Every structure is written in structure tokens, then in C-alpha cells.
């Protein structure tokens, strides 16, 4: 693929805490082009850890090993902290899970977005403000002038997440890692936010890594899906083939979703097989 942005080959992440070692990610390999790649799995399956490893956001004691961790012309494994600082936010940015904890509670949201822009661009404050207002409009916020001056506790969860997206996208990154960006949003707003992300991915030829636990959303939104369980990729398939998934874990996740059209007195609960941990 000529548009290859990211190559990950057998990535392993171990968290070391004294003598205790947690092997959180085991031999994960994938490539990312100009596309939307989903990583799905439950909490604790290591999907967020993969996203964070790409930005080296883990504590210093964490051991990250891989055969290759290549982002464009940069080898992320050997990149210095200074080089990483140039990449974070500007070339790869990350939309975090929860706007409530990710936004600074005592700074106006508009100023927080401007700060992200000013950190990577030489611009005056008023220019930055203009950019921020434009960006807020792009993420479908009515009345951006008013929202600019609000504090995080004054905006709803959905709006908070759109503000996060505005903040992460304002630097025109090449790759966006979205860590459950829509799990706090309503169905009606969700589509808008997803459309915004989609527009940007297409328009600015970005790559998107979409970390989620929502299989149905992923099936309709992304191009490819990696299914993770206990640190391993158990299945990798095209999003449109998800209903033909073969791994019992993927099938279990699909069955556990409550559905409007198929009402059942009880939802089937995932039965875990210890075999999944080894094969």
C-alpha cells in the first residue's frame, strides 16, 4: 500500500511493577493506511494499551518491544522523548475516552483548544481564536462564540466529546487514535460526530485507529476490525464480514447486544474459554 502510515509488527507491552510483570499486549501486528481501522474488545483486553504505545504514553517502567513500530519516516521504538513530543498532538493525536476527565476543569474550553493549536503553530492569540471557532463549527456546535467561553462542567457529555475532537483535530494530524470517542454520546449525536471524523479522514487523508467495544458501530463505520482478547488479536477481518466472524469470542460479543428488533427475556452472557488465552 503506497499510503501506508503505520506498521506494527509483533508489539509486546509489559507493565513492570516491582517484581510483578503484567503482559498486557502480546504479539500484536497490524498496518494502517488511509483507512479506518477498528480495535474492539472488552475493557482489559489491551486495546487502549496498543493505542497508547504508539504515542509512548506509558510510564517509563513499561517495556515495549516490537519487531517494527514504524510511523512514516520515524521509528517510534527508538525515537527520543523530544522527537515524540513533536509527533504527539501534531502528527498523531489521540481522542480520549472521557471528556469529563480529559478536559482541564478550570480553563475555558475554547482556550484549551487554542492551547493545543498554539503548542504546534506560530500564531497570534486572535488567529488561534478564529481557528478554534471554525473548528467548533466543524464539529457541529451551535453558537461556537458562546461555547468558547464555557467551562467543562457547563457543557454536556456529548458536547464535551466534540470539544475533545475539535482539540485533537485542529493540528491536522496524520493519524488519529480515537479511544472510545462515542461511547458517551447519544445515538443522534453519535452519527454527527462519526461523520465529522469521517470527513476529516477523507479530506485530510488521515488514518484512524478507532478503539471501541461497540461491534455494531464498528461494523458500519470502519473498514477493518481487529478483535482483541486478553492482549492478543484473536481475529482480524473486514468490517463488512463481521457477521461471518468465526471466533467464539467475537460471536459472543455480537450475541450479547440488546436489540430493538429481537427482544429476548435474557441476554446470552459471554462464556469464556481458557483456550482463547493460548491459541
Amino acid at each position, binding site marked *: 500500500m503506497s499510503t501506508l502510515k503505520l506498521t506494527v509488527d509483533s508489539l509486546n507491552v509489559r507493565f513492570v511493577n516491582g517484581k510483578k510483570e503484567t503482559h498486557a499486549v502480546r504479539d500484536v501486528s497490524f498496518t494502517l493506511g488511509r483507512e479506518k481501522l477498528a480495535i474492539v474488545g*472488552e475493557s482489559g483486553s489491551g486495546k487502549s494499551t496498543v493505542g497508547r504505545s504508539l504515542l509512548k504514553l506509558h510510564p517509563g517502567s513499561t517495556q515495549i518491544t516490537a519487531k517494527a513500530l514504524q510511523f512514516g519516516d520515524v521509528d517510534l521504538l527508538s525515537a527520543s522523548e523530544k522527537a515524540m513530543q513533536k509527533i504527539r498532538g501534531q502528527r498523531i493525536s489521540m481522542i480520549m475516552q472521557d471528556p469529563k476527565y480529559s478536559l482541564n476543569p478550570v480553563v475555558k474550553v475554547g482556550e484549551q483548544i487554542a492551547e493545543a493549536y498554539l503548542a504546534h503553530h506560530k500564531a497570534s492569540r486572535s488567529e488561534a481564536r478564529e481557528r478554534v471557532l471554525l473548528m467548533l463549527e466543524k464539529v457541529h456546535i451551535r453558537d461556537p462564540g458562546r461555547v468558547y467561553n464555557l467551562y467543562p462542567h457547563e457543557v454536556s457529555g456529548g458536547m464535551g466529546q466534540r470539544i475533545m475532537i475539535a482539540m485533537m483535530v485542529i493540528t491536522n494530524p496524520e493519524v488519529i487514535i480515537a479511544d472510545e470517542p462515542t461511547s458517551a454520546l447519544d445515538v443522534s449525536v453519535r452519527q454527527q460526530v462519526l461523520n465529522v471524523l469521517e470527513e476529516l479522514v477523507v479530506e485530510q487523508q488521515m488514518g484512524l485507529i478507532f478503539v471501541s467495544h461497540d461491534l455494531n458501530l464498528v461494523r458500519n463505520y470502519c473498514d477493518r476490525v481487529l478483535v482483541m482478547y486478553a492482549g492478543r488479536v484473536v481475529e482480524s477481518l473486514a468490517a*463488512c464480514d463481521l457477521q461471518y466472524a468465526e471466533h467464539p469470542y467475537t460471536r459472543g460479543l455480537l450475541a450479547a447486544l440488546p436489540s430493538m428488533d429481537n427482544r429476548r427475556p435474557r441476554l446470552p452472557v459471554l462464556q469464556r474459554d481458557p483456550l482463547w488465552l493460548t491459541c
Partner: protein
Amino acid sequence: MTMIQAQSLNLSFGVGAACNQVLHDVDLTVEDGESFGLVGESGSGKTTVLRCLAGQYRHWSGALSIAGAPLQHKLSKEHFRKVQMVFQDPYGSLHPRHTIDTALREPLTIHGMGERDDRINDILLKVGLNDSFRYRYPHQLSGGQRQRVAIARALILEPRVLLLDEPTSALDVSVQAEILNLLADLRQREKLTYLMVTHDLGVVSHLCDKVAVMQQGRIVERLDSQALSQDLACHDYTRMLVQASRDFSAESPRVASA
């Protein structure tokens, strides 16, 4: 018997020019033993209705009653024996430095209920945990276990009404299925009345018999969840919600997201 009743409930925040009315004449009736869902997007006022019933907002106007007893603006202790609430975020709703035991003991102390150890053990078993969890802290539990503790915390006073504010939206699908099953079982066993707020139509049609759709502080439509899944909704907004939810659901073809 009518369990929860709200008549022309109005609520506004701020005064003068900054006055923002968030609830407009909300009428709501939930029968005893029923499971009622409130759906709508963020900011539609669905959680606000719950908060009025739970006594977190006290400057509402209109009439509210629980099990026939009208609500005063200052709520009595007895009210909280009848009505308890489960919050959205199990990470935020449990005190990080209190053990599960402390968290569950506190309501018992406030209400002067005896046999506290037995009650705590009982309630933990009821929500699918056991007494080994008693002396743990919230950070030592998974999200699903924390939500079970939050449900236990609400049920320990043996209420008749449970107000559920998006109880599963912070959880994984596999854990969500477990919690939804637990809530369904508890309702049957304890004869509880549920008033649940959610934006997930799949969840609401799974757990609730009746649904009210809210938009901008008004109830725009009331219907059975059966009717909801059979596309019998009349209001445009409801249809939009159903459509938006269908776009992500299993049976639908890929959406052209232009």
C-alpha cells in the same frame, strides 16, 4: 396502583435573562411493578426528571408523588427508603477511599436499620457478589462489579422504586448483558418499579415495557416498547432516534455516511 406520578413538572435554572427552563410540563405515570424508560438525547432533561424525583433538585413546580404520597420540596427520610437511584458512572459514584462495606453500611446507619452485617452479606449475594468483596476498595473492582455494588447500595434500603440513570452506558457489551440480566431478575424477585433513563434504544426495549421520548424538556411521545420496535412511532423525533439506532444495528445494511 400508580407508583410514580408527575403532573406538569416544570423546572428552570437561573433568573432573569439567564433563565433557562429545562422541563416543560412533564407528565408521567408509572404503575407499580412497571419498568418505564425515558429516552432522548443529552440535554433533553431526562436525567433532570430523575433528579427531581430523587430530591437532588428541589425548586421544581408542579406535583410529584411516589406511591400516592405527594412529594414536598424538602424530602423526608421515609422518601429515601422508597426511592433509590443508581448512577451512570460506577467509577464516580463510589467513594474511592471507602471500602464496599463502608459504602453499604452508611445508608443503614442513616436510617437506623439493624442487623447490618447480615443485610450487607445478603445484598452482596443478591447482586451476584459475595462477602469477599466487603473489605475491598472500589479501585480493586472491575467496572461491572462496581455497578453491582452501586445497585446493592441502592437496594440495601429495600426501596420500591429504583431510578436508573444510564446504568450500563459505562460498561462493556458483555458486562452490560450481565447487568441487564441482573436488573431484570431483581425486578421480578423484589417486585421493584424501574424508571430508567437511557439513550440506547436497544437497552430500553430490552428492559422496559413502556417508553417516553423526551426532547428539549418535553415529553413528545409515549409508547410501548413493542410499538417502538415495530416502527409504530408517530413523532418525527422518535422516528429519527429509531432510525439512528437502526443504522448501527446488526440487521441493517451499511449506511451511506455522506
